[in-house]
């Protein structure tokens, strides 16, 4: 596996800045949902690292559940109609305060679909917490209630975000230099 130092263009958000911002988000969420029946929903697999760090910064008791979605077809022509649910929630969210936790909002197409789908189950409230917001790429509007960082339209990796399924375990968000990155296969 290629060491990331060979293709890292820059560290966009370092570990300390990530953890500081996540602590702020956690405090804000703990305050806003005090006395409520909060459930955090994570879309696998990218959002897992963010979810784990965020939940540890939330001081009120809450539940955690997971969804996995995949797309029918491939490539950039994804739309809501092409999203398939490969893992559904174990929890009934009716009447609960649901917070969808996402690593990155890009086109917004998948999240818009997931929100629409979750809404049909009649949660008491439904909001979005996104670590990274790549607003320039937005195709479908998504309301983001808790935002970690706005980022430019660059190819990012680390902190749960993969490059061909690797490098999710880096503790920072980095930018790839595509000229220097060599995929394995």
């Amino acid at each position, binding site marked *: *596996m290629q*060491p*990331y130092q060979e293709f890292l263009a820059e560290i966009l958000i370092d570990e300390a800045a990530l953890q500081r911002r996540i602590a702020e988000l956690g405090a804000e969420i703990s305050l806003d949902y005090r006395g409520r*029946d909060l459930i955090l929903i994570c879309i*696998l*697999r990218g959002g*897992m*690292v963010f*979810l*784990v*760090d965020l*939940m*540890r910064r*939330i001081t*009120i*008791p*809450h*539940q*955690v*559940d*997971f969804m*996995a979605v995949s797309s029918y077809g491939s490539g950039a022509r994804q739309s809501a109609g092409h999203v398939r649910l*490969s*893992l559904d929630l*174990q*929890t009934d969210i009716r009447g609960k305060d649901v917070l969808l936790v996402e690593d990155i909002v890009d086109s917004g197409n998948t999240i818009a679909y997931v929100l629409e789908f979750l809404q049909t189950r009649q949660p008491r409230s439904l909001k979005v917490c996104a670590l990274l917001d790549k607003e320039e790429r937005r195709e479908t509007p998504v309301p983001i209630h808790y935002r970690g960082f706005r980022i430019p339209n660059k190819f990012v990796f680390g902190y749960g975000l*993969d490059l061909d*399924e*690797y*490098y*999710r*375990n*880096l*503790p920072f968000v980095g930018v790839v230099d595509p000229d220097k990155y060599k995929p394995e296969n």
Partner: protein
Amino acid sequence: MQDYHEFIDEILVDEQTIARRVAELGAQISRDYADKDLLIVCLLRGAITFTADLTRRLTIVPELDCMSLSSYGVGHYASSGNVRVNLDLRTNIEGRHVLLVEDIVDSGRTLAHVLEMLRTRNPASLRVCVLLDKKERREVPVQADYVGFDVPDKYVFGYGIDIDERYRHLPFIASVDLSKYRPPA
């Protein structure tokens, strides 16, 4: 929702001790798989925190995947240990070096079934890294290759491990005083 202070029995492993041990395991796994292409499989949902922290302590670059399992039946039938796969791996593990990450092993029945199932897919190697080992409860001979901590036969929570789907967010591992704990409605 009950505050955990109301029902905590004792802290079995505190946050600093967990962090230190996770770093040791990360170093050991990095050495053992130094020149290998490692696939880490996180068993949802209990192992999420352990996996997110452990992978960040690796100096090698692993691929990450998740599985979600549940036991068939309830109560007395659950002891068959047969598992149902709610979410299967996205990765083909044939010829791969696989490390399964689990939060806790007690009877060992579920783990034995998962290992048996994964072995049929012919990985190059298959090992287990478990945060907590409740050896007293073992019913089938299954042994983890990497163990975080040996724990007594107590009902534990925190660091990803839930009680009735809550309290996963606490940064330590504690035991419950069942006489004081009230399940949510």
